[in-house]
């Protein structure tokens, strides 16, 4: 028994060490989305180019929903990737112009190019709340049934596309077949 008692502190140390070791690899900036596996929130809003848009206008295949704004510098970094994806016909991208002004948004798209099928105009940020948006840029992967399947916070560059989105899309396609 006495010999066993000697091992208690050692055991305690091992447990604490493992817990702290794992803690080293937790990213405190990971922001889990509550909307994973839930339908896109319903909306009836105008688009940046002034048309009435609702859930019925969303693509019926897998698409990206990208939250952007003309004030958002990281959006410029991911912009070439979004442009490439739509130009090469990889995946349709729908925009959410988040907490921005319509005229500034139009100018921004003219200047940098428009990768979006359309951009939902969300000047008040109210639609962003329903999506659980933290801030631009954010990108959601939505399946053909309009269900949100994956969310990435911050810049979507080629590396993120290759490492996170492609496997997630492959999984969705495997599910469908």
């Amino acid at each position, binding site marked *: 028994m006495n010999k066993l008692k000697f091992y208690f502190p050692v055991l305690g140390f091992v447990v604490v060490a493992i817990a702290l070791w794992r803690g080293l690899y937790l990213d405190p900036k990971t922001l*889990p989305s509550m909307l994973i596996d839930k339908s896109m929130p319903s909306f009836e809003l105008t688009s940046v180019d002034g048309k009435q848009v609702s859930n019925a206008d969303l693509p019926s295949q897998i698409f990206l929903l990208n939250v952007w704004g003309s004030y958002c510098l990281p959006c410029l970094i991911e912009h070439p990737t979004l442009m490439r994806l739509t130009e090469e016909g990889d995946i349709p991208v729908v925009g959410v112009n988040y907490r921005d002004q319509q005229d500034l948004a139009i100018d921004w798209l003219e200047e940098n190019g428009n990768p979006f099928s359309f951009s939902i105009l969300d000047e*008040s940020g109210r639609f962003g709340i329903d999506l659980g948006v933290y801030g631009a840029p954010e990108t959601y992967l939505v399946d053909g049934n309009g269900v949100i399947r994956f969310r990435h916070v911050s810049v979507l560059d080629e590396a993120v596309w290759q490492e996170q989105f492609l496997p997630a899309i492959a999984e969705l396609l495997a599910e469908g077949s």
Partner: protein
Amino acid sequence: MASSVSISNSKMRLFAISLLFALCALSLPSSSYSQVDTFEFDTDEQQQRFRSLSDELRCPMCQNSSLSGSSGGVAEDLRREIHRMIMEGMSDAEIIQFMFERYGDFILFRPRLTAGTILLWFGPLLFLLIGAVIAFGIWRRARKISDDDAELDKSQQERLQQLLGDKS
């Protein structure tokens, strides 16, 4: 001379400890850094609820401040939503549920009691219990040792008598 030195030492120590506690108290977060609200309410009670809700909900964008203490874009929108919901007559529980459905546990400064947060809620109590058990063990053993010291068993008594007898 020696005793006066030790008294001044202990006074110094007491002073240092009180200073430490005072500093700790000063560094406690206070909710007085609120954003200036321009919202209008019908009653003081509504305003009070608004204050406590925006103190209790965490700003999604800025990790470690509450909605009331943040000037971030989302925080502003969420404060506006809280105001709208209060004016529409929703209860605090309904408003918190609204936020939870969109932002999850992240937005709650007081996390819900779930399998994932049970250690968070009861961990401190668990550690207190472990500490109490250890302290009790040490105390009991210390008492046993002093009891053993006080009472001599038969052979020790005989030995004592022998020693005393030898001397006399």
